[in-house]
Every structure is written in structure tokens, then in C-alpha cells.
């Protein structure tokens, strides 16, 4: 074998090794960042059943957990985003008092998705309604269209963001049902934080799931059911 050939082999070997060393960490990071590469399935419909009889007046555990999980400040100024809020209700006729958490209802026919000019508001195959923060131009039409005031606009520059939940000044955001947790097989932070287990999370389509069985057996309502949006979040005891 000629001298030149050996040199060439040596060169190719070294180059391949160097390339592998250079690419490997990137591949690893890509794997870490993307984790579950499986696409969302339309067979699944993620939803929640909220038992208002178990929701304590004045308790804000779900709100605190949401703020922590998604890197929200927890401020309640008119310009502060609130992805989930506690609403105290008093029946005008009977005076009966109810307390419940309110957030994006993850509608099957979401008005925010209809009105968004850039398709930044979208519904994932598994029913989760999200905002693509790279596409949102900040027109706030979705906030006008949402019947639940579920959406907030980021009015100020942001600091200390949670890497799993990127947010951006000048764009609109809302409850994502903790999609980053769901994709890792976990349940939303609010459901996990509720001591009274008032928030039941699961797949509404799965006949074996607890939420499916419960929705079949107890009376539950959708908020503003008259709008026929078929919400993914249902309330019991209203």
C-alpha cells in the first residue's frame, strides 16, 4: 500500500472521529429538548372536570402552582398575565356561594383560533388550545373573542423564564394545560397542587379513564354552554 493511501485513511478516520465528537452533544441536547417526539394524537381529548363543591373559598393553591410552573410573576395588576384565576360566585337568587378556578376552557371550536389572523392560536390534535409565540403578532383579537377572558397579553419585558415555557413580550398567552408536563406523562400543575382533588385531569375520549367515567356518572356543565364551543373543561356542582 502506498504511503499516500495510508495517510488518506488516517485523515478520513480522524475527520470522522472529530465530526462525531462535534455533533454528538448537539444530538443529545436535541433529544433532551424534544423529549417525546411522538405527535399529539387526535384520538385523545385532554380535559378537566372541576368539582366546585371541593374547591375551597379563598384557597389559591392552583393559581400559585400555575404561576410557579409557568414562570408567571403572580402579580394581579390589570397588566399582569393570569393564566388561571379563582372566581367567587354568588347566586343572585338564592345567595349560594361557589368558588372555582377559571382558565382556558380548551374548546373544541375555539373562537380565539377562528379570529387569529396568523394562525398563531391553534388547537393541537389532542384538543389543547395553544398560542405559537413565534407567530403571534400581538393584535389581541383573540382576547376580544374569548368568552372566558382566559387570555392575557404580555405588557412588560420578562425575566427568569422557565425554559420549558417560553413566553414573549408583546404576545398573547393563556393556560396551555401544562402541555410540557402532559407530553412528559405528568398532569397539569394546578391539578397536582389541589389538596382537595377538585381538579380531575384526563382523556375525555378514553372509556377507561377516571374523567370519562366521572363525566358519565355525575352532572357536569360547560360554562357558556349556549355558545356551543364544546369545552374541554367541565364543572361539577354549579
Amino acid at each position, binding site marked *: 500500500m502506498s504511503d499516500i493511501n495510508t495517510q488518506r485513511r488516517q485523515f478520513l478516520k480522524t475527520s470522522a472521529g472529530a465530526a462525531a465528537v462535534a455533533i454528538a452533544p448537539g444530538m443529545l441536547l436535541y433529544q433532551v429538548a424534544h423529549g417525546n417526539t411522538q405527535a399529539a394524537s387526535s384520538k385523545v381529548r385532554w380535559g378537566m372536570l372541576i368539582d366546585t363543591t371541593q374547591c375551597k373559598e379563598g384557597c389559591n393553591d392552583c393559581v400559585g402552582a400555575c404561576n410557579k410552573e409557568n414562570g408567571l410573576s403572580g402579580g*394581579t*395588576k*390589570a*397588566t*399582569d*398575565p*393570569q393564566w388561571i*384565576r*379563582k*372566581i*367567587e*360566585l*354568588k*347566586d*343572585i*337568587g338564592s345567595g349560594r356561594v*361557589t368558588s372555582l378556578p*377559571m382558565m382556558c376552557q380548551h374548546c373544541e371550536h375555539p*373562537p380565539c*383560533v*377562528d*379570529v*387569529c*389572523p*396568523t*394562525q*398563531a392560536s391553534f388547537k393541537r390534535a389532542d384538543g389543547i388550545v395553544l398560542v405559537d409565540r413565534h*407567530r*403571534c*403578532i*400581538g*393584535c*389581541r*383579537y383573540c*382576547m*376580544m*373573542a*374569548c*368568552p*372566558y*377572558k382566559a387570555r*392575557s*397579553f*404580555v*405588557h*412588560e*419585558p420578562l425575566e427568569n423564564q422557565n425554559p420549558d415555557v417560553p413566553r*414573549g*413580550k*408583546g*404576545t*398573547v398567552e393563556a393556560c396551555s394545560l401544562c402541555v410540557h408536563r402532559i407530553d412528559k406523562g405528568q398532569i397539569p400543575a394546578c391539578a397536582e397542587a389541589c389538596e382537595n382533588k377538585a381538579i380531575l385531569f384526563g382523556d375525555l375520549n378514553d372509556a377507561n379513564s377516571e374523567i370519562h367515567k366521572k363525566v358519565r356518572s355525575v352532572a357536569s356543565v360547560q*360554562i*357558556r354552554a349556549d*355558545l356551543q364551543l364544546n369545552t374541554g373543561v367541565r364543572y361539577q356542582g354549579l
Partner: protein
Amino acid sequence: MADLSALRSMNRLFYVLLALGGLVALGGAYAVFMMEHHGHVISGMNNQIVWGMPHVFAIFLIVAASGVLNVASIGSVFGKAIYKARAPLASLLSIAMLSGGLAVLMLDLGRPDRIIVAATNYNLTSVFAWNVVLYSGMFSLVIVYLWTMMERRMNIFNKAAGLAVFAWRFILTTGTGLIFAFLTARQAYGSALLPPMFIVLSFAWGLAVFHVVQAVIYAWNEKTLDPAILHRKKNLLGVFVIGSLYMVAAYHLTNLYFAHQTAFENFILRDGGMFPNLFWWGYIVIGNLIPLLLIYAPGLGKNKSVMAASLLVVLGAFALLYVFIIGGQAFPLSIFPGYEVSSSFADGQIASYQPSLYEFLLGFGGLAIAFIITTVSVRVLNFMPQDKPYISD
């Protein structure tokens, strides 16, 4: 040698006007820069009042931009000579106001730098997305229409272009009304009456702006408007004002009739603090009744009173839009009918809103853009209405 001093002083005045317009536009640019840098927190807008003062200015300009073309349509489509002579000026004003209005609307976005996304990711179900097409289409159509009027060889296409503009602006204002008409969940909006209401309002507002600009141009050229023409045009303004008053009344009366809307109407018309004041005094009295008096009262209806009436109609337009846009959002959204509600997110409460200086700067910036476009165009091209010595129709 001829005395050129008068000409020179006019020249100077033109540049002073241009500088003033530029200064106001610069103020708008400053507001945009500040809002981009600090976020919308420096505006008065918040998570309850998501559309504020900039939208009042923008929607006025866009609606008036469509309505001012009425003057052109009556000329080109219905063949009335005195209107035909004014079609170029009307078209110019339309382009100018559309530019100003769209600039305000775009620069108020949270991310105006991404405006191109509106073209690359088009959502067919979004009325905002439709409007992107409607506005740009209107812009191009009116330019073509102007071309067919100002270039003699293109005159043969004038009628066709006029018809196209006529149809397009109806669809355009329908689109503007639909932005609100499609908001089913909000008590103030979600009514099929809104598109036609906006169309009739556009007639009045557009014609009012036209009258003001026309009066200024005549004064600039040291000409006086033929009283017969003024008489016809002021009567038209009167009819449009009455028409828009009727539409606004029908909108509120239908709301009053629905029990679930009564609380909202009480708020807007009676209990809502500044909103009823702005509605009754700002819109009804200043924007309608006084202008009608100035137009129709015996002995009035001359140049000055028509000018005053037109300015008041414009003021009334701003009052109505403020009540409609801000008041409509200030009234709490009915999420739980039959319940008293309270929360940290202003549920069940009247939302508060204090427009900030930046919002006004941005809004006036839009007016300034329209002003600059009009002033420069009127100076370099011939937009002065050329009436024939004898009015045949």
C-alpha cells in the same frame, strides 16, 4: 417684474405645514419606539381593555377612508357632474386616511416587526386576515381609479374602476363592522347590525372630512365654492348624519329590547359615568344635533356653518367610537349569567382605562400621516375640483 412675494409666502406656509405634520408624525414614531421598548405597560391598555385609544383613531380613519369615496362613487357610478369633479380629491383623501389608519393599527401591535407573518400565515376564518386583503385591495384599486381619472388615455376605464371601488368599499366597511359583529360573547358587539351601521357612519364621517379639506383647498387657492354646490353637498351631509343617527338608535333599541342586554345598555346610556356623557353630549348633541342645526336652520348652512358642522361630525365620531370600543370592553363580560362574580382578574367589575400620552401620540401620528400625504399630493398634483360653468344634473 411680477410681485412674487405672495407666492413666496404661500411656499413658506406649505413648508411650515409640512414641518408641523412631520413633527406630529415624529411624535407618533417616538410613541411606537417607547411602546416597543417598554411594552404596552406604558399605554393605558391592559388585559381588560385590550384595544384602546389607538384603535379609536385607526377605526375612525379607516371608516372615513371608505366613506369619503362616496363622493367619487356618486360621480363615477351615478354620473353626477359636481361629484365627478371631486372624485380625484376624494380618492386622495381615501388613500391618505387608509394609510394613516393602517399605520396606527399596525404600529400598535405587540410585535409590529412580525407584520409579514400576517401575509405568510393566512387564516381563512379570521376577519382580521380578510381585512388585510380588503385594505391592500382597496389601496391598489383606488390608485388605479385615480390613474383612470388623471391620465387622459386611461379615461375609458374610469367607469369600470369607479364601479369596482364602489363595490370594494362596501365590502371593506362590512369587514370593519364584522370585526366586532363576530364577537358573539361580548354584549356590546356580536350584532349583525354593526356592518350596515359602520357603512352609514362612514358616509357621514367621510363626507365631513371631505368638506373640511375642500374648504381649506378653496381658501388656499383663493377661490370660493359655488353656493349651489355647497347647498347640495351640505344637504347630503345632513341626510347622512340623520341616517347614521338612525342606525345607532336601531342598534341601541334592539339591545334594550333583549332582557339580557339591558344591563349593558343601562351602563352605556345612563349609569356608566363618562360613557353616557360622551354618548349623549359628545355624539348625540355635538356630533349630530348641532351639525343638523348648522346645516338646516334657516339663515345658516353657509360656508362657515357647514365647515363647523363637518368638524363637529368628526368630533362626534371620535366620541361614538370611544364609547363603542372602550365602553364595550369596560362592561364586564357575562361569563356566569345569574351570578354575582368577583376575582383577581376584574370579573364582574367595570374595567378602568386611562389612555396614556403615548396612545394619543400614536393616534395623532396617524392623522399626521394622512395630513402629510394630502398636503404634498395637493401641492404637486392637481386635485383642485374643476367645475363646469353649468351644472347639468
